[in-house]
């Protein structure tokens, strides 16, 4: 059961400008104990479960696909460390991050969205890949009153404008 507010959310939200990221794509050759061990040692955080985000010293580690996570850090160093268990690609330029802060972020994401961002079970430590204002995005709540929206740079300008309306 999920409780929710009845009214349209009008709580304030601040929308940051799109910022570059340091994301590195890690694709496991196999989701096994060897990968988990090497990944944990290299990244400093466990492999996130499906739909989850874990915190690592260099930044968030985001579950992206069944065998793919997005970590933060130096791509070349990670590639060396994970060479036996995973393919590593620098995708820092492929993502921008827009931060929404304020109690109204859930309602803001329902506008021209498809995902149930008002579900309280979707909170800090979760990630969802969905569409928002026609743009493919990843949503990562970072606090009770904040969410990070990851989007491809080509869509970032339009999405930022739409979120800021």
């Amino acid at each position, binding site marked *: *059961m*999920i*409780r*929710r*507010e*009845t009214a349209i959310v009008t709580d304030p939200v601040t929308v940051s400008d799109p910022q*570059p990221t340091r994301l590195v*794509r*890690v*694709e496991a*050759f196999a989701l096994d104990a060897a990968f988990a061990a090497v990944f944990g040692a290299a990244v400093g955080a466990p492999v996130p479960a499906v739909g989850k985000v874990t915190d690592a010293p260099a930044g968030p580690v985001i579950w992206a*696909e*069944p*065998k*793919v996570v997005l970590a933060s850090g130096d791509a070349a160093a990670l590639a060396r460390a994970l060479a036996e268990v*995973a*393919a*590593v*690609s*620098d*995708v*820092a*330029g*492929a*993502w921008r991050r827009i931060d929404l802060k304020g109690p109204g972020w859930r309602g803001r994401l*329902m*506008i*021209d*969205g*498809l*995902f*149930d961002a*008002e*579900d309280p079970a979707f909170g800090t430590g979760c990630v969802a890949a969905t569409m928002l*204002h*026609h*743009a493919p995005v990843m949503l990562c709540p970072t606090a009770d009153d904040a969410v990070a929206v990851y989007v*491809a*740079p*080509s*869509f970032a*300008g*339009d999405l930022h*404008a*739409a979120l800021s*309306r």
Partner: protein
Amino acid sequence: MSGGHRLSTGGVIDRSQTLRFRFDGRDYAGHPGDTLASALLASGVRVFGRSFKYHRTRGLLAAGVEEPSALVGAGEGGRFEPNTRATDLHLYDGLVSESQNRWPSLDLDVGAVNQWIAPFIPAGFYYKTFLGPPALWKLYEHVIRAAAGLGRPPQLPDPDRYERRAAFCDVLVVGAGPAGLSAALAAARSGARVALVDLDRRLGGSLLGDPVTIDGQPAKDWIDAAEAELRTRDVRILTRTTAIGYYDHNMVYLAQRVVEPGARTGTDGISQRMWRMRAGRVILAQGAIERPLPFEDNDRPGVMLSGAVRTYLDRFGVAAGERFVLATSGDDAYRTAVRLCDAGLRVDAVLDSRPSEAIDPALLRRARDRCPVETGVRPLRAIGTPRGVTGLEVRAASGTVKYVADVVAVSGGLTPSVHLHMQAGGGLDWDEGRGVFTPTAPRQGQVSVGACAGRFQLADALSDAWRAGLDAAAATGGKPVADTPPRSETWAFADQASAFVPAPGVNPKKVFVDPQNDVTLGDLDLAWREGYRSVEHQKRYTTLGMATDQGKTSNLIGLARLAENEGRPAPQVGLTTFRPPFIPTTLGLWAGEDAGFHVTPLRRTPLYDLHAAFDPPWQAVGYWRRPRAYLRAGETLATAALREARMVRTTVGITDVSTLGKFEVSGPDAAALLERVCATSVSKLAVGRGRYTFMLREDGLVNDDGTVWRLGEDRFLLTSSTGGADRMAGLISYARNVLYPDLRVGAANVQEHYAAIAVAGPRARAVIAAVVEGMVPPRHMSLDRGVVAGVPVLVIAASYSGERAFEVYAPSHQAVAVWTALAEAAEAQEGGLYGLEALEILRVEKGHVETGGEIDGRTSAHDLRLEKMLNPRGGYMGQLAQQRPAFADPDRLQFVGLESLGGPIPEGSMLVERPGFAVQGHVTAAGIRVLEEGFVGLALLKGGRARLGDELLAWSPTRTASARVRVSEPVFHDPAGDRYRD
């Protein structure tokens, strides 16, 4: 007869406030809680508009969204909204409204002449105009087109916003009448996440106009208590919100009026909102719609539905007239008669078509205590003028009798609103006794309760809905409560189906079924005689049910008439399909935010702002925008493109190719994966080298093309076309995750990680040498890494233009500095920027195939002259399928070049021997020679590879352009490839 007026007491309106509004240029006043219909009725207005075809005067028939006649235009300027039901427009201060379909005025309407030529314009008359001499259609067309359409569209841009919003719930209850409220209370108390929507401004539905008691309280108090409880239980309550469409997987579209039609918006500028509500379970409680009775001139202003008369009285405190006659075939009208009498209004008679023994004695007695009741009486015709009804002529046992009245309240039974149930794929049962379709066989677990399920008794509706609410909550994880459902008094209901048939002797040509489109019983009979015996054909031939009300009050009467003519029961005749939207909606609501600049999302390359500074003409490439050319003063697009192409052929040019698809494939099995995805060999590539490649679909046809580069022993970069980038991403993911999941490989889409800048021309090498620190420009189809303006870059030597060329890849967020450095270096070499038009001219002259042009989803590797590049070891996707015999057909469309023997070759034109002869192929691309004289093109031609030297006509009749062409090899520029090499 003065028409309607406001009573001194009663109604749920705020009499302490006055709202001013205009209708057809005259000032009126009403109160908060009024609709435009109730306020005008209270002001004595009887005529609201004109019908579509015959321009007959139209008054109010109903009090809700089913109203077919009282359509108005609301608002001014860009906010003007035509075809708005006066009954569904809640009054606001400053409302400006007007009647429609009349000229020059509602009282004096030139179009009313159509009534006198009615015999010449029967149902389907416009179809018959096609039977006459074709030349006459030129005449008819203008007349019919001028007459088509109802209302006038706004002439100015809409200043308001329309929002689209997603929402989710466990239980969605559609309709907040007694059944809906009961269901919502049960579901909410059981812990479900509930949404309750209603098209009205306030909750209560039919209870707002019905002085009944529920749980011992007056209905209005019970509504208030229910709403208060629902709000405390966090139920999402959306008023002025209509469920307009029920789609698969319990997706229900809800149209919300944030402000009334034509009204100014609030600070957020939002006029309407479209909710896309995904529900675990849906409970439909939409109520029922009363049917009118069939008699002559039943469309006169003042002929109203009995329930509507009661609603105006009890909800708005408005008497619809001075003297009332009620004609009915059932019990519900008795309630109206009792209420009118109790309000001190004059009811001259209740005229019931049933014999007295068929009527509940208590009901009959209760009415007769207040007014005369005649039984076994059937209405023949409404008496009156275009300004309104003045009486009713009926057939009684004693003969024909005339009653004086300014309101004839009619009740032909109730039709359950099964629209959403049908949209959800549900079936219907026919109840012969009551003449109604009731919902059955829900396909998505939807439940209909109350009147829309054919349960007209209030007590039944409350208890059924309660149970449905508990069940829906349980189905979505809630715990049903043990409370008892709300209880109410009961009324007798025994409506009968005989109301579908007019009394003997009534002229069917004067009995209106669809008062908006002026469809009569006579029209339905004519359609049937002319062979339109399917209910769907009858609908389209007569336009019955095709008006803005979608036949809410008329469909069943029309169906019954067809069944009668066919001599078959109604269920065998069938029912037309109810499609979304349930009520008319504005286009703005569907568009949402996707209007103006945001009509589609805009994908910007990392260099977009630099291009935009030149204000270039843009080319839409999917959601991307790319500059077509960088025009100088006095240049046209064509001259600019030719200048830029010549610049590339003679010095150097740079262009933004960031939109290309790019994939980084890495891992021990990277080559193995690519040899399955690409149809060319890959594994033999040396590190630092690249090659042209193409990919097949599983059916053997070419999917896309690009280049593949070996960045390291286990690391490759694969590029593909802009248009095919998303398709390639899907193909690679499919290959990686579905076909070959065990490969030790990763495949990353790096399309947006890298910006890409092409540097092309005889001096491209000099530009690279000048800009990239510490690099000897790599030779053709080789790569190297370097630094430009402090940014690490990857430089690959590949050419699309036919000149020595490079592509410089840089992280997208650092690309601007790289572009700037390259542009300055190119300028120093007497070069500059070039756009897509020049790119196209260059590639056509070089004979490169392009995705979307020659790679059109129908061509094979052989068709495109690529078969020699196929990997001889095989093993790639599509290999087996391309061995199908059809692929060896010599008459397949094959890739060729075209040399013009005259002027420009029309792009997209067909290739023929002569005009009118069989089409042999088509021109896929064409352009001017860059440095030489003449025009060339590329084409797909039947058996083209064996037809070099043939002369054909490139013919475009739609553009009245043509050119004689000679079939040739497709490479016109540097066939040996000497210019690639230093």
